[in-house]
């Protein structure tokens, strides 16, 4: 037996023994996600147990170095952990922007002191991060951002406003883009900086989404004092860090399109739509749409696997995550259009207990943001055209 096969067996056995049955069911509400943070609360005992066991094994982030609380696994091993978790439908023990966004940027651009300070608190779920990129006048054209950071001795004084800051009202710290040189060209005067959301002068104001939920905020900075040592990378070179982080964010968001676990969508649809005499979904056109969707979903899963393998083999294009982000998010929107169509009038209930507080229509509406957040679909296509296809003037 090869080392990897042995590792797979051990992983399977360990997960079997340690993943509580409740943590193998598909997530149905926000409460099912554990985000960590100073004020974090577990919604159930199994959620706590699962998180703590995974944390102690270093598997909240299996592929980060052990010295930062990760599992120290190489690419092949981490893939095996992902596959074995997917095989039993195991939930992620900890979800956080620290893992999917800030961590990779810190590992590449952070100083050793910054890594030692922040990464272990991410893997242990102690600090919850939010992302301060977008501003009222800087969305797709992110590099036109205006939040200022002015020098005051060893500190920066930060003033300005961010918007659409997901979970800013629950976050402990923020990674933030600020303008440190207003005279430079727009991409050249930006810095990437970290600070505590409890700092004096930071305030947030929640914004309600069409789903009726409020997962993001306006975030205001009024003379917030931040040590210069909190800049990641070089001052005025923050755009490099920002872009690198976006690659990881986009890869993460693209994963929304593939949820290979659980019952096939066609069977879920049949619960409400019914079968014909031959056992096929009663609505033949919906059946065709679902089959076409599942083909694309399986293909996306293969592409996601291949993207990781290509990166490992040093053959990937840095902008490829934009391609995946585009496809994965458009696919997830299709999934929810199908689920709404399959659910018929049952999927229209917004508040009843039977509908778990309108879980399906709220989730459907939430997916519409997938092709906006992290860069819109149009922006993703522009990046592919320019950076991968090398089309002129893009």
């Amino acid at each position, binding site marked *: 037996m090869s080392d990897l096969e042995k590792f797979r067996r051990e992983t399977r056995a360990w997960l079997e023994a340690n993943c509580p049955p409740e943590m193998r069911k598909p997530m149905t509400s926000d409460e099912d996600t554990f985000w960590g943070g100073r004020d974090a609360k577990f919604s159930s005992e199994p959620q706590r147990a699962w998180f703590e066991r995974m944390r102690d094994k270093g598997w909240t982030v299996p592929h980060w170095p052990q010295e930062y609380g990760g599992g120290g696994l190489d690419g092949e091993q981490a893939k095996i952990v992902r596959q074995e978790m997917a095989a039993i439908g195991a939930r992620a023990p900890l979800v956080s922007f620290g893992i999917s966004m800030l961590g990779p940027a810190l590992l590449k651009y952070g100083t050793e002191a910054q890594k030692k300070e922040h990464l272990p608190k991410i893997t242990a779920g102690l600090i919850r991060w939010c992302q301060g990129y977008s501003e009222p006048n800087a969305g797709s054209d992110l590099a036109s951002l205006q939040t200022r950071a002015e020098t005051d001795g060893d500190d920066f004084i930060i003033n300005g406003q961010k918007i659409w800051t997901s979970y800013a009202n629950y976050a402990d710290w923020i990674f933030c883009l600020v303008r440190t040189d207003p005279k430079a060209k727009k991409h050249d005067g930006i810095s990437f900086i970290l600070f505590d959301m409890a700092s004096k002068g930071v305030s947030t104001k929640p914004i309600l989404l069409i789903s009726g939920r409020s997962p993001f905020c306006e975030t205001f900075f009024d003379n917030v004092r931040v040590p210069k040592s909190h800049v990641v990378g070089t001052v005025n070179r923050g755009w490099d860090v920002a872009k690198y982080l976006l690659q990881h964010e986009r890869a993460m968001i693209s994963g929304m399109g593939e949820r290979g676990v659980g019952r*096939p969508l*066609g*069977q879920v*649809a*049949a619960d409400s739509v019914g079968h014909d005499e031959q*056992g*096929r*979904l009663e609505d033949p056109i919906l*059946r*065709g749409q*679902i*089959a*076409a969707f*599942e*083909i*694309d979903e*399986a*293909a*996306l899963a*293969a*592409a996601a*696997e*291949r993207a990781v*393998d*290509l990166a*490992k*083999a040093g*053959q990937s294009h840095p902008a*490829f995550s934009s*391609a995946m982000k*585009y*496809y994965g998010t458009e696919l997830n929107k299709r999934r929810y259009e199908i689920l709404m169509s399959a659910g018929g009038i049952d999927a229209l209930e917004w508040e009843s207990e039977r509908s778990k507080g309108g879980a399906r229509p709220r989730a459907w509406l939430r997916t519409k943001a997938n092709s906006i957040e992290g860069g819109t679909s*149009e922006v*993703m*296509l*522009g990046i*592919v*055209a*320019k950076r*991968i*296809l*090398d*089309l*002129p*003037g*893009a």
Partner: protein
Amino acid sequence: MALVLTEEQSMLRDSARGLISDKAPVSHLRQLRDSKDATGFSRELWKAFAEMGFTGLLVPEDFGGSALGCVADGSLLAAFAVDEGAKHRPLQTNLQAKRSGNGFKLNGAKAFVVDGHTADLLIVAARSAGSPGERDGLTLFLVDPKANGVAADRTAMVDSHNAARINFDNVEVNADHVLGEVDQGYQLLEGVLNIGRGAVASEMVGLSEEVFGRTVNYLKERKQFGKAIGEFQALQHRAAQLYIEIEITRAAVLKALQTLDANFDSAGAAVAVAKARAGSTATLAVQEGVQMHGGMGMTDQFDIGFFMKRARVCQELFGDANFHADQLARMKSY
């Protein structure tokens, strides 16, 4: 296994690419078409493929000398006769095989038998029991195309390749010409079809990639309104979408091929996904390819039309995207 080509596979790809761009560029097919070549393909080229080992890739080496060995070394051309109606429906096979003496008598008709007009050997799916739609009762036969009662009619197709419509009128076949087991041929047939589907899906990925490459080049060269047409965002986004479709399909096809290698009997779903995706992607690629070339794309003199025609044939061969979507839905019980 990683979803990337191994070094050995990359070398194989490079040597195939070398041979084909040297000996069989589009102009080669154009020449066969325009000269109304009787065979419809070049036997010499087939020999060159065989010498490179391409025809024997799936055949273990110790079959030398047998019929299988001759297929592998390119000296014997076998054609596969499955389809009967306008669409690929292997379960609906209705060509009759009735027991007679020491063997069988075949009656019925096949269509879309690729290169069936020049084959040295036919592999024929027939119904030896049961009725169309049933899995049980299918048998595969090896049939000599020169046998009494076999009549092949060459049909030149839209892509300048050839298929045959073949009639079987009381064709006698010996019992020892049964491939596999009588009445139990479905599994074998399905397995072989899956290999074919994987291969055609790969061809369609290659086709899509080639058309796309030519199209992107054209977007950079062709100028209108004082700039390269590739500067127009409407075209940029469509090109980017096509690129993404092709890359996702490429991964799905690699996945199917690896599954066929590693887990042959349960590769059905992965193959259905790959063939369906490849069909849709190639269709999109050739449509966008012609459209973005404007009037030039519509001319026979320009090569892009050959790809459009070939994509249409590949889509039908061994089941189109709709067929495979339906298959997938059945596998998943909905």
